């Protein structure tokens, strides 16, 4: 089973895409971040503490950690700069 990961803002440059399908054996938001950080230095830096504002699982904003069910849509949000 996969999850769909969406990237926003500067994270699109890191990912080289705005979204990707990722094989998902189960886990939570911390599992996903650890998995992505392990892809290399640019990922580890882009997703370091303080660089990630919030994760969104199935359109629900996550404060703290949250389970990511298979098939989920997960948005990874850098610090926001609207208004």
């Amino acid at each position, binding site marked *: 089973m996969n999850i769909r990961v*969406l990237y*926003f*803002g*500067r994270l699109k*440059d890191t990912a080289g895409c705005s979204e990707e399908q990722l094989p998902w054996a189960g886990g939570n938001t911390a599992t996903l971040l650890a998995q992505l950080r392990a892809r290399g230095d640019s990922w580890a830096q882009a997703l370091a503490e303080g660089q990630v*504002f*919030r994760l*969104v699982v199935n*359109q629900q*904003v996550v404060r703290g950690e949250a389970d990511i069910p298979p098939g989920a849509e997960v*948005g990874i*949000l*850098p*610090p*926001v*700069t*609207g*208004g």
Partner: protein
Amino acid sequence: MYCHISIQTGGFDLAAEEAALRQHAGDAGALVVFQGMVRAHDTATPLAALFLEHYPGVTEAEIQRIASNAAQRWPLAAVRVIHRVGSLAPGEQIVLVLVASGHRKAAFAAAEYLMDYLKTEAPFWKREDFVDGSRRWVDAKASDDAAAARWG
């Protein structure tokens, strides 16, 4: 409380929005409007355009949450929020917030609260596209976090 939120690429008509809001604002005595515009010279290299993206669905829900929080703090009659996305030239409107309330103190406070939280909680991202062809995603500002934090 009447609350209407739009995320759109097109501009907005302040007079039309004011007239529409007053239809829903009953006997409100105070209207506060904030309008943000793209600045050309906020940076060393002049700006060609500001590009804004957002997270459809989540953005609207977050702004609705911010407006509901504001309505719990102040007696508000009506709120209207319009936020543009896409590529905007210097001088163009970015954001419009209208708040109608019985009295001015509540209307001012709520409009400022909405702007502070729009800046720090709503999933928008700005990229500066400069006249020399370079591009840069805008960094979040500590001053914006501080502005939001003061509401406790």
